[in-house]
């Protein structure tokens, strides 16, 4: 991997932009209340459609068949009449029935072989019927309505009369059609309304949930950054989110207490250990100035001073691990790119002096929230380790990668590495593998790296660099 490509990758990586209204809208569509509301609306709409459709079907079956029976009976009657009546009497009968106000909506038409109306209340023979199945014919007739006329749907049967005449007997079914149309419109309105209400309600609830969840996640982020005094916002309501928030807040109170307690214990432990160590160091150094250099007494005092130094670095490491584990370290924006580059630069001369090639590929623009000093210490420990265990002529490679998932720091060497089955163990405190016993060190180096990694919400992975060790910190 060349550095230029890494740099390009860093530039291409999209920065986390502020949430745009579009994204917020899409976010609401993703919320569970919105999805539930939509599912229910669709179910309700289907239900409403089925119900109204069923009622409409049943009603029209009943009404249709009663109308048809009525017409059938009328046709039967007229067929009998035509056999016994003269043509003129029959025409008169038709005219009579056409004008009979008691039989509302009944229609009659008798036409001659040229389809010219002879008798009846339909102005003309329907040449363009809406439907015609041979027996039943449906057509529209203009019916006067005060000053205007309205097209009415008619349902009729036709039959042949002697002498080439044709007869049409039917009924005005407009009213039924109107009811049907009304029901259909009602059905559509109901479905649309259900969907709209569901959509609107779901959107509103989704926005509410999103606002609450947003507030909660903002606070959670601050808490994860180490500000344990933060609490989740709680509204004056007893819904499940507020109940949950209250319970989480109680839990946070407890965690804060425990963490502050740990910090206090840590501070007093630090104080109680550093103070006597300091007395020891002061006394040893004070006495050293009294004795002649090179004398046996002087050597003893120097030994004491060196041991105090060892104890101090072990204590520093332990305290830093403990501090990182309490998670109470102040955090700031740290430029990982600057940090990695400057650590490589700091360690370059010493590795060169030991005949080790220190290579680096550092992507630009990588930033994390955290403690610069602890991150530097962790990186220093990894580099110290790598230099300690890499033989002369070896190679150490430090990379800062910036994949979309988050920055990753990798330190690889081609030293002896750590056997796969021991990789988990070395992260524990004070573990030094047998082969490491001949090299100086407290054995806390990787534990500190692990604690610092955890503090930054990162993942520490030990791997085989074939040959050597590959340590990766994934942020």
């Amino acid at each position, binding site marked *: 991997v060349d550095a230029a490509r890494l740099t390009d990758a860093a530039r291409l990586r999209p920065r986390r932009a502020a949430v745009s209204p579009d994204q917020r809208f899409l976010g609401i569509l993703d919320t569970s209340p919105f999805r539930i509301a939509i599912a229910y609306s669709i179910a309700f709409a289907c239900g409403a459609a089925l119900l109204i459709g069923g009622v409409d079907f049943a009603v029209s079956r009943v009404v249709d068949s009663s109308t048809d029976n009525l017409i059938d009976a009328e046709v039967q009657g007229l067929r009998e009449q035509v056999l016994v009546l003269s043509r003129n009497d029959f025409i008169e009968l038709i005219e009579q029935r056409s004008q009979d106000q008691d039989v509302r909506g009944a229609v009659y038409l008798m036409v001659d072989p040229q389809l010219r109306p002879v008798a009846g209340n339909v102005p003309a023979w329907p040449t363009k019927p809406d439907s015609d199945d041979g027996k039943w014919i449906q057509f529209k007739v203009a019916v006067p309505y005060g000053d205007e006329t309205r097209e009415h749907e008619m349902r009729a049967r036709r039959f042949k009369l002697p002498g080439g005449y044709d007869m049409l007997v039917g009924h005005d079914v407009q009213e039924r059609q109107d009811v049907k149309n009304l029901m259909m419109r009602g059905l559509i309105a109901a479905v649309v309304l259900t969907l709209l209400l569901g959509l609107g309600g779901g959107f509103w609830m989704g926005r509410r949930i999103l606002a609450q969840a947003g507030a909660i996640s903002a606070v959670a982020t601050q808490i994860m950054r180490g500000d344990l005094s933060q609490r989740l916002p709680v509204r004056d309501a007893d819904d499940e989110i507020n109940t949950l928030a209250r319970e989480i807040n109680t839990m946070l109170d407890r965690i804060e207490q425990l963490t502050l307690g740990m910090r206090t214990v840590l501070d007093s432990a630090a*104080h109680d250990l550093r103070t006597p160590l300091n007395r020891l160091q002061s006394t040893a150094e004070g006495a050293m100035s009294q004795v002649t250099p090179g004398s046996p007494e002087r050597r003893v005092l120097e030994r004491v001073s060196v041991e105090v130094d060892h104890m101090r670095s072990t204590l*520093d490491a332990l305290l830093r691990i403990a501090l990182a584990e309490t998670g109470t*370290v102040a955090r700031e924006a740290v430029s990982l790119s600057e940090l990695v580059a400057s650590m490589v630069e700091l360690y370059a*001369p*010493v590795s060169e002096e030991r005949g080790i090639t220190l290579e680096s590929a550092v992507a630009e623009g990588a930033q994390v929230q955290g403690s610069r000093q602890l991150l530097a210490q962790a990186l220093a420990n990894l580099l110290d380790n790598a230099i300690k265990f890499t033989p002369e002529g070896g190679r150490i490679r430090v990379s800062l990668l910036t994949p979309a998932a988050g920055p990753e720091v990798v330190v690889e060497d081609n030293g002896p590495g750590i056997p796969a089955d021991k990789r988990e163990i070395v992260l524990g405190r004070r573990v030094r593998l047998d082969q490491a016993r001949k090299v100086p060190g407290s054995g806390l180096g990787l534990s500190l790296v692990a604690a610092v990694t955890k503090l930054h919400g990162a993942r520490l992975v030990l791997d085989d660099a074939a040959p050597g060790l590959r340590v990766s910190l994934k942020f």
Partner: protein
Amino acid sequence: MHILIVEDDEVARDHLAKALREVGHTVDVAADGLAGLHMASSIAIDLAIVDRMLPKLDGLALVQSLRATGRKLPVLILSALGEVDDRITGLKAGGDDYLTKPYHVAELLARVDALARRGESGNAETSTKLKLADLELDRMTRRVTRDGKKIELTAREFQLLEFMMRHSGQVVTRTMLLEGVWDYHFDPQTNVIDVHISRLRQAIDKDFDKPLLHTVRGAGYSLREDE
């Protein structure tokens, strides 16, 4: 120089006072925060060394009260706490430097010296040209010459030399260099600073008779003209 030590630990206080007197300072001591604040306000003191945890008045509160009254004297804070961000709170409270216990007397003396000279050599902080014997460093042009000959340095070597020149004549410890040049506060297991210094020494001293960069045994380095 008149130095006030505010420290409740008697053993450490006595040794510290003795060490400071040995190098020629006038020393006053106080065993608690209130006494320390009282002395710092009533006596003409050039520098104060204040322990962070003190009875009666906390070390940080002492420094804050001192700063509130407008006293600008340099203050070195000693701490026996867990450090990392304690250091930041210490400096924010008005401390000029921060040292964690246990410390080496040499480290403390070097830091006291640096703090004391910071006041008097105020113009060295701002002047663009630094000079020691025939060694010259121009901060504006980033040019370094010795005896008129140009010396090629990397950016970091330049920073390192600049730091050493600003503290010329003083002892500069490894931790002071790591803090001052790299802004890191940890002790590396390997001798990283020594190698950087030996490279700088190669660059500025190799071709010349009189070495300027000296190793001070048990303490650190010093850039000075040998007498």
